[in-house]
């Protein structure tokens, strides 16, 4: 029996804010749940994030942001992924998002949006379910 390949996840911090607590907690939890996790570090431009995602051949990208610049930065990441023909990569977001932005973020193609107080096991389950559904 062959072992399932590990799910590869990029956790990235777009924009300028330095609040990396959530990104690190989620990255560790996903790693502990058996995924391969790459953490970009701080202050990543959309270009850097997409480049890292392609280079690392990830299945999913989680963007963490608390500066409220998400509506400027998220569309750019989606656009760059589209230009590379990689809209298949699962996108999810974590941070502080005003209620009214959540449907907008989902419309961009983010399958999961996780605010403060989210359970890391739910994030891991979400990723597994989404990846499984993609076959």
């Amino acid at each position: 029996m062959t072992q399932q390949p590990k799910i590869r996840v990029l956790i990235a911090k777009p924009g300028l804010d330095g609040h990396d607590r959530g990104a690190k907690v989620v990255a560790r939890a996903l790693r502990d749940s058996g995924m391969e996790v790459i953490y970009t570090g701080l202050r990543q431009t959309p270009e850097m994030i997409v480049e890292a995602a392609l280079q690392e051949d990830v299945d999913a990208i989680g963007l963490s942001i608390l500066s409220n610049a998400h509506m400027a930065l998220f569309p750019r990441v989606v656009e760059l992924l589209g230009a590379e023909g990689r809209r298949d990569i699962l996108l999810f977001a974590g941070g502080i998002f005003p209620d009214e932005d959540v449907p907008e973020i989902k419309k961009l193609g983010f399958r999961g949006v996780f605010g403060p107080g989210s359970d890391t096991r739910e994030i891991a389950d979400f990723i597994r379910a989404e990846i499984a559904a993609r076959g």
Partner: protein
Amino acid sequence: MTESNAMAHLRARQSAWETGALHEALSRMPERAETFMTTSSEPIERLYTPLDVAGIDPVDDIGFPGEYPYTRGVHPTGPRGKLWTMRMFAGFGTAEETNARFKFLLNEGQTGLSVAFDLPTLYGYDTDAPETLGEFGKCGVAICTLDDMEVLLNGLPLDKVTTSMTINSPAAIIWAMYIAAAEKRGIPRAALGGTIQNDILKEYIAQKEFIFPPRPSMRLVTDTVEFGTRDLPLWNTISISGYHIREAGATAVQELAFTLADGMEYVRWAIARGVDVDAFAPRLSFFFNAHNDFFEEVAKFRAARRIWARAMRERFGAKRERSWLLRTHAQTAGASLTAQQPEINVARVALQAMAAVLGGTQSLHTNSLDEALALPSQSAVQIALRTQQIIAHESGVANTVDPLGGSYFVEALTTRMEREAERMFGEIEALGGVLPAIEQGYFQRHIADSAARYQHEIEQRQRLVVGVNAYVDAAPPRVPILKMDRDGERRQLERLARVKRERDAEAVSARLAALREGARGSANLMPLLLEAVLARATLQEMMDVLRGVFGVYQEPVIL
């Protein structure tokens, strides 16, 4: 009965109580949990008695308010004399919008100003830089030039209120803009009171808004300390901050130890510069978090004062009493607030603020109930300020000095935290000091471990957070969210373009060249920055000069 007889008697009675009344109660009904712990995962005993404080000297360790080692506070009359400064951190959008919020807050009874800058400003970018996509005015106010600073401070009584500015990597430049704006209004710099955060060490450790590598950054901080000591005797040149260290996930003891270790590092650098410790030490101030665990927080403030006083007097040989004092601002814990059922955050903030007051803070910001959702709305800020006013005028806790002093529990906790902090100082020293410890990721790793443990405890329900993993309410939160002026960025860009158009370009180039020369050498950069600010060089132009000379720091990525 002699003292040791009294202790023996107490010990005997305690044994009897344990085998008697306690045993009986436990056999009838076990306790709610096998072990109890603080917010920092520290174990807490069932009961504290005089036996737990037997090694603590009532004079040498606890003493009196306003007397060494200041465990009971820095002032003999505490809040009976002067209430703490109610200082709400505010800033968003343009200088005009933030100026209006400041006027609102002063009108509502606030007693000090506190400026939040937007992320581009914190990273030394002007509003027109491509790196700032989407960030204008989001987490604070955008300040690019002296003109912006003049608008920000327009009509504010700078000779009567003190202003705190949360700015770190570009602190020297923003401070120069503040000084220049005040002097243009005829207020001499020596009359200006306030604080620049200017605590670069905690940026590498936790907040992550560093730009230059640690050593040139420390040189810049030391420049401001030296300049302030000479020219602005009422200004606090560094606000040594544990707040962000705690928000990033540190425990209370880690916050205490890492912050004080940073403070001692600044003292070492200033002494090495040749500044007399008693000339600058009185202008160092602190900034701590006020988190959920009430007694642990009170003990943290008390321990901080005692450790600092002892270090300044014994380790650094400071002679003036004012050099021994740890004066502090406090802010309630943003990361403790929940997006779920946001209204209940008002209760959390009240308890945290009460801990800061009973801990003896000199100044306090209370968070708004919508903190986990967005920037605070005006009505949420008003409730937060009113919370402080209720504590001050209705709760009665400000009627006596250090009312928790002498509590067996609080004194035992204070001493335990002091010892634990000293153990951490030893670890940091073993790594070669604060800068090598940063470069090796010591602080970052400990903080990430604590943050992960805290999250794990919540997910395992070893720790209950109301509204998150207990007493959950499925209804979505409905609180009004701050709306910003959508036109602000355009107006800011117009002002910036106008300044660049109207200023004397040659003068700007000459000032920037002089700054570059100074940065390459060892001159104090403050006078050069003031000259450049007055010539209307922009924040980014000055920061780019310094980036060119000092380089840009890449942190080790630690998971």
